[in-house]
């Protein structure tokens, strides 16, 4: 047992830190550190900087053009990026669809799609949820009918995060209604410029158009865009979920945000207030405990000894912590959480602030973060999964 990273791992961390310091644009990290609005251009600029270095797909093996890092190196890379104030990499391309294409896609699909994902040129979206299929994803209805060399897709996807920017979308579609719902699902890659696709942003409770509805009206998709075999899509989707693991805890970002909680609490004069300070102290312990849990998972993966079945716990705890730090920041702002001045959430706004500038986005973030216990498998679904690990069924 040893808590410390090896000298090699520490050297690796130093290398990443230096690279991020030299390459992460200051205007972008300023926005991230202050929760100001990130544009599509900001996100894609950082994706392309990473892509040029071959790190946009930082978890990829060498064989597909990735750096071939082990789990510890990946963790250190994620941590250094998060602490430096890099935007979260939009996961749909490099983290979600790429591993599926690597594992189950044809060589042609791999050659066609992986380079554009790595370079950050092609923006991918996720087409999973439907209006009637949330937690019960396998009940999905969006239909793909084979007609010659094409699938004809009809139906609707929803909650498609940043789908308004998407070039491509990977979808779970129904190709059969025989047998169990899970067995009639296929995994399809769809060009979002295809005729018949309509994207309509949904305005969220914080005023942001973060997610979308995507409509498919007789969309022709070349049959070559089917990943793997027809009706095996559910298996591939589960493979994708297995790739989230420690990522979903997002503990590195939580550490950065806890530092921000403390900065804001000091500026607003509540850091020395025992009642408030103790709440920060509780959150601090929560974050250390979550980080230890993440490190335990990484250690188990590295040594390959005892696998830890705690992915559900990481999702639940990570999301609760995200909600809690957003809540504490809002409470620190107190009455200055009330104004809703949209322009004040833009970098470089010169208008009259109400209260300190750091207060402007706090309530919006708090509202927005209610999503964290809902998406990625709601925390209640996660509790079902965790309970099965304890009860054996």
């Amino acid at each position: 047992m040893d808590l410390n990273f090896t000298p090699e791992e520490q050297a690796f961390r130093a290398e990443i830190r230096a690279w991020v310091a030299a390459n992460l644009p200051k205007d972008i990290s300023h926005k991230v550190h202050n929760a100001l609005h990130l544009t599509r251009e900001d996100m894609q600029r950082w994706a392309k900087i990473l892509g040029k270095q071959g790190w946009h797909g930082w978890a990829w093996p060498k064989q597909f053009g990735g750096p071939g890092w082990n789990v510890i190196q990946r963790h250190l890379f994620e941590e250094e990026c998060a602490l430096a104030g890099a935007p979260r990499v939009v996961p749909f391309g490099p983290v979600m669809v790429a591993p599926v294409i690597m594992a189950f896609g044809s060589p042609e699909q791999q050659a066609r799609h992986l380079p554009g994902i790595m370079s950050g040129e092609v923006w991918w979206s996720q087409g999973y949820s439907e209006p009637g299929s949330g937690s019960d994803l396998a009940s999905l209805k969006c239909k793909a009918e084979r007609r010659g060399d094409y699938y004809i897709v009809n139906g609707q996807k929803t909650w498609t995060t940043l789908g308004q920017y998407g070039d491509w979308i990977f979808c779970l579609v129904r190709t059969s209604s025989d047998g169990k719902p899970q067995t009639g699902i296929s995994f399809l890659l769809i060009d979002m410029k295809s005729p018949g696709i309509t994207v309509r942003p949904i305005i969220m409770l914080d005023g942001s158009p973060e997610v979308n509805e995507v409509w498919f009206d007789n969309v022709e998709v070349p049959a070559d865009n089917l990943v793997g075999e027809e009706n095996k899509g559910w298996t591939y989707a589960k493979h994708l979920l297995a790739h989230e693991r420690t990522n979903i805890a997002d503990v590195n970002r939580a550490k950065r945000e806890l530092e921000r909680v403390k900065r804001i609490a000091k500026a607003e004069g509540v850091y020395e207030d025992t009642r408030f300070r103790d709440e920060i102290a509780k959150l601090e312990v929560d974050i250390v405990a979550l980080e230890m849990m993440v490190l335990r998972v990484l250690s188990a993966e590295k040594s390959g000894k005892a696998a830890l079945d705690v992915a559900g716990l990481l999702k639940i705890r990570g999301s609760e912590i995200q909600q809690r730090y957003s809540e504490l920041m809002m409470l620190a702002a107190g009455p200055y959480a009330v104004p809703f001045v949209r322009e004040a959430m833009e970098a470089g706004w010169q208008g009259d602030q109400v209260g300190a500038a750091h207060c402007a986005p706090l309530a919006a973030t708090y509202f927005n973060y209610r999503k964290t216990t809902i998406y990625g498998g709601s925390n209640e679904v996660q509790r079902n999964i965790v309970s099965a690990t304890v009860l054996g069924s």
Partner: protein
Amino acid sequence: MDFDFSDDQESLRDAVRRWVDKGFSFERRHGIAKSGGRTREVYAELAELGLTGLAVPESHGGMGFGPIEAMVVCEELGRGLVSAPYAQGALVAPVLLSAAPADVQSAWLPKIADASALVVLAHQERAARYRLNHVTTKATKAGSGWALTGAKSVVPAGDEADAFVVPARTAGADGDAQGIALFIVPKGAAGLAVRGYPTQDGARAAELTLKDTPATLIASDALPVLEHAVDAGIAAVCAEAVGVMDKLVAVTAEYMNTRKQFGVAISSFQALRHRIADVKMQLELGRSMSYYASLKMGEPAAARRRALAQAKYQLCNSVRYVGQQCIQLHGGIGVTDEYIGSHYFKRLTMLEMAFGDSLHQLGEVSARMQDTAGVFA
């Protein structure tokens, strides 16, 4: 960064587990509790396994092992719900004695190692709660030695111990960090009165009064030593708690799978399934922070103190939640004395009180907070 146990550590775990399986049944624990909570016999059996010498240096007849081995042993003792003052006698006392002059170490450490002497820390005072700098017991020079006057409270295994390590004030006022010295006082010393009583979890503790009691100096201005020893105690308590919780959760899961109501196993009810998921969460957070506690024992004092306070805060919350909810999940049987579940619960509850409860630890964490955060902050 590596959380695997070495082969030697796994062997140590197996050895303790084998002894527990063979030699320490629930009936034995129940019998000890019912007959007053005396555990020296159990302690002697742990000595036969070599466990009481675990933290004593080899030069004094011990094994000279570190905090990870101590954690492994404590987890197993917790899993077996073993009644014995192991953390006190075998893990805390050696840290206290490590600050003593060579002759005092030679006089006591070999006896601690072979359990011929049970030495326990007697530090709690009436109004001090868990604050280590609140010491009113007075130490005055008496010829070439020292004499102590004062009172110490809730001393674990107090009327079974052979000697006490007693913090007393040589200078300064109650609450000062300076002027606290550590002394060793054998049982039967002049002016020492020991009044023993049973504890909630089936063991024993005692009230000590000292009136001009002769004492041997271990170290003066020794608050840092006392803090270090208490941190060793915290790490041990955290590990024991993990062992107890592991077992209690397993017992509870088994019960949920066998107990039937409305014609089905109660483990099929989602309200209960979600509860056991939350219990699992607290168990794993607790295990993570128990590792953290033991892994941080070798750090410089400030970092060690901060980490141990964080760990104990988590474990306090974990033991309370896991204990309470596992009782609830059992229904009526959970609140009976005949069922083992209630004994796990009571032990967990007493572990919160050992070396500082959740509110005390939260205060420590809060006072020691820095701008940065996380495991490596």
